[in-house]
């Protein structure tokens, strides 16, 4: 957030510094004390809050007593002072005692005592200060003490004689505390040193004045208060019963008052906004209107205090309207510009005018921050609305107008950028372009086109955008790529990465699998994603999932499974995609973390359908796992290769069930299909898979179903061969073709592939067109085990060698020759290695390496 939004501390500071001007000269010292008082209190938040609230209370009370001339307020003041007096005297007494002790201690060099006494002194002084000013004797004391400490430390350096340990420790503590403490009283100390006697004498006269300046201060922001209970037909009246006039001339005065009360307690924000609405209606000049709107929009944003609640709907709408008006005003009167680095105009009475050398009248403000805030507020409110109600839909319709604001904001910044002398930071433009991109990247092209069309309709024909010219951008894909390219060229770090991800998301959504995948890989984001913020990591996960779904739509089962593995295999899809908070079992997260996570949730309309995702993932896993399970069969290293643990677990669970009813949900469907496929009943498997209703959510459902049938046929054939090969001597290709309703050519291609990859111990006989299964390939248990043992032994040797090589930093070259030999041994499975090699290569390309540590971080934040 920028400095245009409220931050409690700075506003109170501002107001106090502005108050300063109102004080008379002789009160200067007094004021400084108060200032330093405040400074000190800022060191500790809690303390400050206390102090402030007490101040507020006083203010609240004195509001009713407000009249400088009224006698009863005098009285109450008198009374108060009378009460204070006696306690004060007592404290002064204690104070002088302590000071004496300090003086004595410092004379004899007992620094330990001095340090303790000094602490005591500070405590006492702070009490006194609460009720009045800093006592002069205190200043005298600390000033003298500082001098003595300095002297003593000088002496330490020259004399060889050391202090005893205790005294030394005390001395050091004292020195440090003193240094820190005295900083706060620097002005007083200097004035004391300049004129010791005069300073001490002025003591008494100044004390009774502390209340006076406050009264003046209240006067200034009084007019803001009463408007809260403003009614039709009544004159607006201020606290003193005076009529408040909203005239164009008084606008700035009102505004200043409101600005000053910002962030303080007991101000009525709604009332203030009402006042400003009135002001806005009377504002005449563009300058006035701009100023009023800027203040009003900030005030509206202030309404949503805290991070969890959204701002009220009507205020959001009003803010949106006002921003729109603001942008119109700015477009109409080009000499006024709102930029971040402008100076505040202090003079309320006359508006700034164009100087001879100036081209623009600069008004401080940040359009981009307003736009961002407006966007955030909408998101926040969408997070809180139940997505299945019509309220959500209604709210969602506001996105159109929001997008329009973003768009116009962008146009405005573009025009500002044209003026190089303004030095508009590239960053602002990037931010606003990013916002625009974030509103379109997840939408289908048609929707984006409508959105864009509406925006262009609302700006005059003469206006054109530099980044996205009206003429050349007709398609949504052009828009996305133009926006992204702009960000690639002009930004770096997170924004660049986000732009890249948004683009890939959009590409994947529109079935450009290869493009999306290549860009994803080329960006090398998978290596750095862990260093980005959580929101970006979520976007990364979303993009990843979208790429996986795209691969599935293309029929690339292997790639799809691989890409989705990381997200779907984790069982934490909800968290990783920020689409719902996972129920935590062992209270691993603190409420704080949970709150943060809730904030990160995406609004419903951006969600990726989790059920569809699961369905795709499980189906892909089935197509890969079932033949694999059939292949590994009963061999001893059965547990070696598991493609999807999640799937295996579900399958095991499903198999354990004694009675299985008809499938009810997606998971059941896939599991029963798996079972059928494993048994060679591919038709049944297809039926189960086709019965899943959620496919209807995919575009071109029929194509996808056809693709799935084809895949199931092939995998069914493979599974069948793996499972039943041991029971056959020969199998006719024709028969197989008939069984799986595949062309004989396709069947022999599948078989050839299996033979070539040494998955199947068989050969084709061309004459009879049959598959001949080889005999004696089935290993006995002992043989199988001894093969495994041999493998394990050789891998053990290799590990040993590698370890030694590492330890010796490769200096012992004795292994070079052996390495070659070892490899020679491994050549037996050349062809299989080829397949394996291809797979691992693809795996990298497909992107299992996509995620890595990102996921964990995305969750823990």
């Amino acid at each position, binding site marked *: 957030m920028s400095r245009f939004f409220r931050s409690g501390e700075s506003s109170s500071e501002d107001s106090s510094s502005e108050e300063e001007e109102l004080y008379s000269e002789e009160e200067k010292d007094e004021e400084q004390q108060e200032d330093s008082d405040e400074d000190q209190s800022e060191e500790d938040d809690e303390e400050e809050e206390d102090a402030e609230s007490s101040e507020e209370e006083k203010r609240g009370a004195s509001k009713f007593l407000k009249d400088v001339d009224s006698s009863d307020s005098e009285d109450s003041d008198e009374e108060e002072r009378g009460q204070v007096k006696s306690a004060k005297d007592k404290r002064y007494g204690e104070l002088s005692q302590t000071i004496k002790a300090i003086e004595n201690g410092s004379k004899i060099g007992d620094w330990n005592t001095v340090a303790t006494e000094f602490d005591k002194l500070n405590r006492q002084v702070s009490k006194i200060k609460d009720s009045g000013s800093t006592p002069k004797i205190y200043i005298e004391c600390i000033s003298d003490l500082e001098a003595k400490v300095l002297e003593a430390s000088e002496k330490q350096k020259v004399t060889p004689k050391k202090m005893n340990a205790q005294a030394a420790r005390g001395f050091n503590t004292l020195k440090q505390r003193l240094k820190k403490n005295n900083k706060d009283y620097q002005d007083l100390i200097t004035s004391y040193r300049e004129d010791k006697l005069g300073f001490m004498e002025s003591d008494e006269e100044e004390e009774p004045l502390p209340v006076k300046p406050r009264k003046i201060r209240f006067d200034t922001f009084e007019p803001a208060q009463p408007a809260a209970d403003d009614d039709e037909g009544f004159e607006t009246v201020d606290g003193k019963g005076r009529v408040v006039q909203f005239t164009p001339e008084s606008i700035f005065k009102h505004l200043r008052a409101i600005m000053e009360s910002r962030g303080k307690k007991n101000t009525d924000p709604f009332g203030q906004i009402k006042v400003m609405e009135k002001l806005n209606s009377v504002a005449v000049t563009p300058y006035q209107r701009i100023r009023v709107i800027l203040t009003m929009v900030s005030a509206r944003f202030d309404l949503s205090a805290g991070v969890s609640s959204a701002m009220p709907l009507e205020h959001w709408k009003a803010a949106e309207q006002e921003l729109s008006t603001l942008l119109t005003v700015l477009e109409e009167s080009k000499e006024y510009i709102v930029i971040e680095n402008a100076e505040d105009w202090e003079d309320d009475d006359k508006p700034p005018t164009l100087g001879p050398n100036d081209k623009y009248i600069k008004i401080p403000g940040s359009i981009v921050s307003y736009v961002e805030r407006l966007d955030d507020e909408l998101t926040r409110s969408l997070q809180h609305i139940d997505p299945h109600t019509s309220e959500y839909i209604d709210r969602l319709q506001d996105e159109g107008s929001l997008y329009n604001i973003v768009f116009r904001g962008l146009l405005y910044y573009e025009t500002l950028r044209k003026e190089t002398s303004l030095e508009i930071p590239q960053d602002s433009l990037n931010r606003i372009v990013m916002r625009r991109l974030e509103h379109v990247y997840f939408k289908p092209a048609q929707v984006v086109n409508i959105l864009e069309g509406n925006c262009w309709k609302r700006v005059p024909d003469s206006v054109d955008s530099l980044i996205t010219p009206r003429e050349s951008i007709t398609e949504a894909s052009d828009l996305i790529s133009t926006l992204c390219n702009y960000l690639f060229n002009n930004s770096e770090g997170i924004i660049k990465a986000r732009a890249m991800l948004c683009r890939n998301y959009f590409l994947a959504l529109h079935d450009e699998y*290869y493009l999306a995948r*290549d860009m994803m890989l*080329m960006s090398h984001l998978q290596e750095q994603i862990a260093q980005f913020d959580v929101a970006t990591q979520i976007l990364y996960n979303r993009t990843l999932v979208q790429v996986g779904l795209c691969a599935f739509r293309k029929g690339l089962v292997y790639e799809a499974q691989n890409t989705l593995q990381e997200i779907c295999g984790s069982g934490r899809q909800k968290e990783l995609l920020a689409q719902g908070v996972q129920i935590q079992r062992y209270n691993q997260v603190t409420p704080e973390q949970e709150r943060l996570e809730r904030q990160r949730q995406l609004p419903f309309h951006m969600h990726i359908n989790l059920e569809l995702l699961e369905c795709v993932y499980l189906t892909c896993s089935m197509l890969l796992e079932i033949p694999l399970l059939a292949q590994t069969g009963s061999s001893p290293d059965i547990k070696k290769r598991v493609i999807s643990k999640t799937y295996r677990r579900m399958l095991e669970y499903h198999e354990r069930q004694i009675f299985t009813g008809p499938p009810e949900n997606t998971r059941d469907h896939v599991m029963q299909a798996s079972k059928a496929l494993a048994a060679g009943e591919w038709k049944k498997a297809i039926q189960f898979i086709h019965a899943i209703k959620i496919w209807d959510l995919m575009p071109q459902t029929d194509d996808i179903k056809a693709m799935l049938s084809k895949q199931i046929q092939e995998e069914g054939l493979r599974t069948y061969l793996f499972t039943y090969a041991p029971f056959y001597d020969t199998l006719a290709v024709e028969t197989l073709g008939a069984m799986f309703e595949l062309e004989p*050519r396709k069947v022999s*291609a599948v*078989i*050839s*592939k299996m*033979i*070539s990859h040494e998955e199947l*111990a068989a*050969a*084709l*006989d*061309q*004459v*009879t067109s049959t598959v*001949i299964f*080889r*005999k*004696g*390939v089935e*290993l006995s248990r002992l*043989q199988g085990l*001894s*093969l495994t043992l*041999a*493998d394990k*032994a*050789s891998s053990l*040797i290799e590990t*040993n*060698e590698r370890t*030694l090589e590492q330890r*010796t930093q490769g200096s*012992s070259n*004795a*292994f070079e020759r*052996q390495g070659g*030999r*070892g490899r020679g*041994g491994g050549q*037996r499975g*050349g062809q299989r290695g*080829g397949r394996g*090699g*291809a797979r691992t*290569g*693809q795996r990298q*390309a497909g992107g299992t390496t996509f995620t890595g540590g990102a996921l964990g971080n995305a969750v823990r934040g």
Partner: protein
Amino acid sequence: MASESSAEQASGSSYDLIPKLLPNLDAHLIFPLLEFAAGLYEEEGDDAKVQEALKAKYELLKGSNMTDYVAGLYCDLHGLDNPPAEFTKQRDQVLAKMAQYDSETARITDLLADDEVISNLRSDKVANLEFLKKEHGVTIEMVNALFDFGNFQYSCGNYGAAAETLYRFRVLSTDNDKVAAANWGKFACELLTTNWDTAIEELTKIKEQIDTKLFNNPLAQLKHRTWLIHWALFPLFNHEAARDTILETFFSPAYINTIQTNCPYILRYIVAAVITSRGKPTRNTGTQQKQLKDVVRIVRQEAYEYSDPITEFVKALYIDFDFEEAQKQLTLADEVLRNDFFLSGSADAFVEAARHLISESYCKIHHRIVIQDLSARLGLTEEEGEKWIVNLIKDTRVDAKIDYKEGTVVMNHPPSSVYQQVIERTKGGFFRTQVLTAAVTK
């Protein structure tokens, strides 16, 4: 020495890669390609296209200083007997310029021809320059003149001399950018004078230069690598000895990535090179197997971006195991190869090797093969097929017999004995462990 040319290109068959290659080659390197294309058209008797090619050649070389040749082309193009006067004028200018450069660089050339001077030169360039400056009054300007002269000579088509001049320049200059340019220039010269051995040296030099000088500019690296890959095609298919080195370069991750991202059509040349280099006695079968595997992998990955009959052949044979398709693609590939500048020479070798590959994997998968069928797969007559199989059995010692009566080949795939497998795997284990123990005790 940027390689830009937008010469118009008459496209031959739909698989003609010349238009794709052109942007990455230097004008002088493009010339042989155009010449080749023109030659093809002439064979076909397509006059319009010949004329077009002639025009393309003219456009290509107009900017160069080979005035005589350009004038000749112009005459051909417009059917004139004598070139117009402007060419003569241009020629005179070029000659004058040449003379001027010659005199400018005469001193330094003489110096470098002097044995005494040469013997005083060290490997340190700065020191050398210092020495020449002190002893012989050589200035930086003179060195740079060498560069310009080399460039000029190259532009005149005097490649040998240009190479020599650039070499001299390189010895002396300390200007990195210019040395880099000179490297490219020298490389081009060597290619054009078909000095393959030196060309390979230059290639290695440029490769290093790309790795070291441009390491923080990935885009420039990509661009330079793309150029290098294209230029290297000349020696790849013309110089037997260079093949291994260049293939190795192409298969190194940096270059294979460049090919995949920037110029997937180069895959055709890689596939062709890998397949044709098969069965060469000098080659290590291990590397060859590996390269074949790599090629299959890349073809598979890039199938969506680029495919032509040659990559399709690989895909059909190794990914889909569709032999009919493979055969079909092979026939197509043959034609494509003959129309390709780089590959026309190795078309026969390619077909031969491809047949080998087909029969190899065919035999591996099948138990009994009808000779007739196999012959058809290989695109041979039955008789040729039989001969082929006999040769195959003889060469590769496959365990196979021809059953003449049935007209079939019976393959015998002996199952690898499980005992043999265990022995294989545990072989050398003891020895390796011993060495390990020895190393530990050391």
